[in-house]
């Protein structure tokens, strides 16, 4: 029982970060119906960029944050304007391949510019271990969890109370209607890319406190958020949060109970098994819009 509780807790802590990264995918899908396969690479790219600013160039923190945000803003703007805007109206394959190719470009940039073994960001929080009711958790994952909760609260506020957030939700409902209300839909697409990249960046930085700044694990974590999005439903932000927590817990429990039998590495597989199961049983996810289609 204690073991089970431990698995639940560590799964929950990891799941919150998955949920944050999955929200980034949902925000883009909601506004522009493009599924972002480049997410994993963008997560890694953002973490490496942060490392370059903080460690390589040793900039002070007040300078780091505006430069970081500005750089990611530029990236999001260029992606939307130069690549995805011209693809409007093309078949599904084009949008899928464009984001996949984009992911390649960013993974390539990371390998080219920051080659070799992984790096670590400086530790801000002292590393410590907490005991709570028979379970163990590290200060890093606890802080990650708290930051994610703050980010969730922030995004809920943003989407419900601010004008820009409401405009984004309006755009997600209906492009033509949003345009008639005076919302610049093309600009909203740019904003949603920027917001998504910022979320991906926060997720990447939080995760690199656990895994270091490495391309492969960060990219893998980004890909895991695809499973979260499929489970939660493509259009649902609440779905991303619930899905993230479920996937985190399922992964921890799967790894805890099955690894001894299959020889390790089962947690890499869990998200994809969940994807297949969801697609067979409830294809539109827990909270996604169910489109009734005759097949």
């Amino acid at each position: 029982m204690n073991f089970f509780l431990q698995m639940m807790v560590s799964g929950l802590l990891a799941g919150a970060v998955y949920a944050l990264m999955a929200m980034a995918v949902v925000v883009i899908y909601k506004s522009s119906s493009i599924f972002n396969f480049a997410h994993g690479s963008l997560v890694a790219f953002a973490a490496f960029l942060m490392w370059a600013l903080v460690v390589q160039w040793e900039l002070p923190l007040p300078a780091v944050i505006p430069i970081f945000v500005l750089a990611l803003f530029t990236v999001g703007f260029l992606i939307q304007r130069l690549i995805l805007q011209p693809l409007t109206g093309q078949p599904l394959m084009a949008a899928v391949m464009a984001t996949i190719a984009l992911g390649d470009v960013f993974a390539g940039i990371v390998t080219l510019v920051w080659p070799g073994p992984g790096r670590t960001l400086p530790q801000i929080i002292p590393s410590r271990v907490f005991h709570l009711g028979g379970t163990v958790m590290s200060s890093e994952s606890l802080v990650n969890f708290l930051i994610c909760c703050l980010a969730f609260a922030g995004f809920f506020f943003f989407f419900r109370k601010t004008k820009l957030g409401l405009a984004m939700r309006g755009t997600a409902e209906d492009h033509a209607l949003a345009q008639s209300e005076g919302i610049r839909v093309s600009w909203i697409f740019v904003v949603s890319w920027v917001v998504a990249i910022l979320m991906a960046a926060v997720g990447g930085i939080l995760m690199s406190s656990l895994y270091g700044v490495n391309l492969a694990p960060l990219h893998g974590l980004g890909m895991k958020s695809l499973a979260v999005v499929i489970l939660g439903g493509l259009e649902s932000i609440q779905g991303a949060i619930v899905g993230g927590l479920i996937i985190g817990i399922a992964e921890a429990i799967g790894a805890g109970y099955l690894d001894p039998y299959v020889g390790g590495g089962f947690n890499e597989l869990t998200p994809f098994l969940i994807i297949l199961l969801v697609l067979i049983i409830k294809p539109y996810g827990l909270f996604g819009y169910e489109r009734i289609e005759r097949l």
Partner: protein
Amino acid sequence: MFKKPCGTFDETYERDSALVRTPLRWAGLILLFMVMFLGFPFLAGPYYLDVANNIGITVIAVVGLQILIGFTGQISLGHAAFMATGAYTSAMLSDHLGWPFWVTMPLAALSAGLLGLLVALPALRIRGFYIAVSTFAAHYIIMWLLLHGGDLTMGTSGLTADEISVGGFTFDTEFRMYYLIMGITVVMVFLTNNLMRTKVGRAMLAVRDNDLAAAFMGINVFRTKVLAFFISSVFAGIAGALLAHYQGLITVEQFTLMDSIWMLGMLIIGGPTIIGAILGAIFLRLLAQFILFLAPAIGEVFPSFSSSAVAGFTQILFGAVIILFLVFEPRGLAHRWQIILATFRLWPFKTPLGR
């Protein structure tokens, strides 16, 4: 589908159903085969024969993928995993049981095909984007199983596959393998071309263009989609089996998600025809070869880690090429090829296809 020059008429049924319709086409085809089988292999050294062999194997897999993506309109991100299935099936059968290649290759094709069938089953409930995601998940599951297959698949160290020998004749050099691979490639391309002329092939095109309309005309949409997955995976299985026995050693690292994406990229660059798939495969393989050729120069610019610099550079260039094609020439090289043909045919008049 096939535009004929002015003044060429089909006056008999035989003429109408012929694969090659004009004398000029015959001449072109014979010239191509002469270059392929009598010219190139005698002029090229083992290095370029190796490049050509890899292109041939890729063409088989990519033409198979074209049946699924270009002709049936279903996206698969797991083609490399089906190739891996074929490669491992063939290697396991020849390694553990010692069966000859002409037995293991059909079995490899069949096992990959059946797996493709299994992956396509969610198509009963979902379509479009969701199918792509299910193949994406299937890729990871298949590769995980191959990696953790214990003594059967030998984990990370990989499996050895014997050289192909049929009736005492061993295909042990690049030169001999060239004829085997190119022969199979030509047969597979021919089969694909014929498939698209049959009822099944037409049904696939109908499903791609509008599946509701296709169902209305009496086509079993689900069966057509699953069949497309099966056929495309059979092609991948054959390509995988050839790759396994050609390279002699297969590991899980040879079949990554990146390889599936490369094949998708070849289709984007080539365009939605059989010729397009072939052109795209040749174009991207030659591009990769060109980067290897440039590698020393890249190593000088980024001296710290030249090998990973080359890998990164390849990835960036590859992604950029796909994006450029998507944005500026979504109909691919095949469209360019049509423009070139039309230019020759209609000269000195302008082509209606050009911009």
